């Protein structure tokens, strides 16, 4: 039986104007990735300063310099509609790579922050 599950992966941005790349692994029983969402503990820094590249199974879904604000949803968006729809991607080897770039913006002052990548997945029930 298939069931919906949400996965969260965190990266820390400790230095201004730096790039942080990390690769995460999904469980083997995940069969589809339906959506993607990014949030942060300091939303304004993510919104104004962030860009990222996201790859799943070595396939690039969002290229370098794709602004994080385009993948964010505010609390005015219904919870079931917050994820950016990828249309049910097969995860392949299950490796999800995010390459996040922080860039100065005149409206913000840098302070270390966390970026969270959420994936809306479908997994096979282990039972």
């Amino acid at each position, binding site marked *: 039986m298939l069931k919906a599950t949400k996965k969260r992966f965190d990266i820390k941005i400790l230095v201004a104007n730096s790039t942080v790349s990390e690769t995460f692994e999904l469980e083997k029983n995940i069969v589809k990735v339906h959506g993607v969402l990014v949030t942060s503990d300091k*939303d*304004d820094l*993510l*919104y*104004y*300063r962030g860009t990222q590249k996201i790859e799943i199974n070595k396939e690039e879904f*969002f*290229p*370098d*310099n*794709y*602004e994080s*604000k*385009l993948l*964010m*949803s*505010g*609390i*005015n*968006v219904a919870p079931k*509609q*917050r994820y*950016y729809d990828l249309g049910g991607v097969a995860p392949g080897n299950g490796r999800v790579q995010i390459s996040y770039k922080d*860039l*100065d*913006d*005149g*409206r913000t002052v840098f302070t270390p922050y966390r970026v969270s990548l959420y994936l809306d997945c479908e997994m096979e029930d282990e039972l």
Partner: protein
Amino acid sequence: MMKEGVIIKTISIKRQGERKHFQIRLPKDTKFIIGVEYGGRLISRMEGTVEVPAPKAKAKTDAMVIEATHSTADSGAVRDDKPKALFKRNQLVGELKLQSCEEANWFYAADVFGNDANLNWGDFSQAGFPVNDFTHGNKRTEEIVKVDAESTIINGWYLDALGKSQKLDINYEIKVYVWINVEE
């Protein structure tokens, strides 16, 4: 099989009223342009030396005051002579236009605006949780277009309005996202 992809073009603006012509190259296997969206980043607020006159205290050029039309006597409310509502004009950042080599005229034209200045309208619970684009903003989606992409080049044009309106050289970037359909 058709696959979606996105091409990003960064336009750098440094002078007030700057006009930029640019080209966006698409991959050779592109079949259609299916959507356009944009974003921006402020690099530095002012690099110009032009002096901006101090705003006059009573000038309200950027806001429209709307008074409630019902009489206070009817409602029983005490009149406080404060404006009941203020609509703020969104900051116009520039004009963006895109043209395909396949067809005459622009296929995309947009006024590029900054943050939504009236996002907090109708919200009466602002104590402690101010309304901002990054907390209360809607999900962004591309504007849908459908244009042939046989020639794989898009011509673009951008005109600064932010620096011009503030009479300053403002250094900022506009990113144009062109969503495409690619044949695998």
